[in-house]
């Protein structure tokens, strides 16, 4: 083949490839159109209802540590609602037991992981100084390290302050799992993609509470909209002294803890 033939071939090859890819892409484009039409139908709650504008909302959660009784109803509800694997090492939310001994030793363990130690309640004996439960979940950081490191842009912050994962884009590289300072992410072995708490985004947008907040028997968890002055979370933040996990990392978590002990990490 000489140079002339090559260039002639090239002129025909590119448009032909374009036409083929257009044919292949047509069904995908149709799918997107259908998806685009979705929110208008789903969010209109009545003829006069305002369409959902994600800029008017900014969701967060409050946790009052002094109220948590470690009953794990939240963990059970979360697993049922979000179809999380039942094995005791996949959690979107979990509860940690802190035991602080008199000599200063601190032990932390998840009571949901079925190790022998976690089953035994703390014995009343002698040298326990303080002990309490701390519920943990994805902090939906305003500056999320997991979003920064994702090589394919599969995880992102929505305008209403929720960090979501696009499971169609996620390549399962586990970089985000390493990057999360709170250990909130896991790799779902069924889909081979990263997964974590979504603040029950599908419930929240329908006006329901996240599953864990719904079932918490002692109201240790509060969910609300930081942009709304009447929300329970704003009241919670006003009435309590608030702390967040690992503030030094500048991740600006949106899970706010009240009555948090200095030992909580």
């Amino acid at each position, binding site marked *: 083949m000489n140079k002339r033939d090559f260039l002639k071939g090239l002129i025909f090859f590119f448009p032909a490839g374009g036409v083929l890819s257009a044919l292949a892409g047509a069904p995908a484009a149709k799918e997107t159109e259908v998806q685009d039409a979705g929110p208008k139908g789903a969010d209109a709650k009545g003829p006069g209802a305002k369409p959902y504008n994600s800029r008017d909302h900014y969701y967060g959660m409050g946790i009052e540590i002094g109220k948590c009784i470690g009953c794990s109803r939240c963990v059970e509800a979360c697993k049922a609602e979000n179809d999380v694997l039942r094995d005791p090492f996949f959690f979107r939310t979990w509860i940690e037991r802190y035991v602080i001994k008199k000599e200063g030793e601190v032990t932390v363990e998840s009571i949901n992981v079925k190790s022998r130690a976690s089953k035994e309640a703390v014995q009343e004996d002698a040298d326990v100084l303080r002990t309490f439960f701390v519920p943990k979940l994805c902090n939906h950081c305003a500056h999320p390290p997991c979003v920064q490191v994702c090589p394919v842009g599969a995880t*992102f912050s929505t305008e209403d302050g929720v960090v979501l994962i696009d499971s169609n884009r996620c390549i399962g590289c586990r970089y985000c799992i390493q990057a999360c300072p709170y250990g909130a992410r896991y790799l779902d072995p069924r889909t081979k993609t990263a997964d974590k708490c979504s603040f029950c985004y599908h419930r929240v947008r329908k006006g329901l509470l996240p599953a864990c907040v719904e079932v918490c028997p002692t109201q240790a968890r509060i969910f609300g909209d930081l942009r709304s002055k009447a929300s329970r979370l704003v009241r919670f933040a006003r009435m309590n002294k608030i702390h967040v996990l690992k503030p030094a990392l500048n991740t600006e978590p949106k899970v706010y803890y009240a009555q948090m002990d200095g030992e909580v990490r």
Partner: protein
Amino acid sequence: MRIPEQVKRLAVVIAVIAGGVLLTRFFIIPRSLVSTELHRSATVERELAKPVKLAGSVVCQGCHEDEAVKKSKGYHKNLSCEGCHGPAAQHAEDPGAMKPPAPRDRKFCPVCHAYDASRPTGFPQINPTAHNPLKPCISCHNPHDPVPPRTPQACSACHGQIERTKAVSSHALLACTTCHVVPERHKTAPRTALPSKPETRDFCAKCHGKDSTRADAPKIDVSGHGNSYMCWQCHYPHLPEGRG
């Protein structure tokens, strides 16, 4: 200056390639493949399409009004129905499709009410091995309106640890009411009416003072002993021999 023929031809070829690339990128490749915005909105749509499995207590109240009214007055008023009965959105949509289970055995209630040192002080807890063994909880407590089946008679029903400490001390024979005035309401609503505690050194001096007529109590000169401290800062009244 004349542009050479081969340069013109090359320019045409480059223009065609560039045009082809631009055409492919902006018109032939569907926007859904390249647009971050569409990717994100599609993710949000997928997220919103997920089924709701917990209907929420408000939905339950629509049909089960009796239970809701009963529950709204008791200690369990803030509990979600689905916390005990499990996810029930399916049942809410079609009551015949699925019946939410009701936990009736002794295994379920201790999930919250078994004693655990890490639980907050004041949360009602029992020792499941010692508390009416083998009896199902619901034979005495109605889970929709849980109250102790009867008003506790003795202080030790709740203050067992103090009672046992006192039992081995030299104050063993003193009734709680010797030092504490207990309002009747404290037995039914403990936090709304608290028992009194002694407030002065003179209270202890009634038995332990020099002038006391009580024969079996050790005597001290209250005005000269321990100067400005309160008696219970050194002597724990429920176990006075132990000095901490």
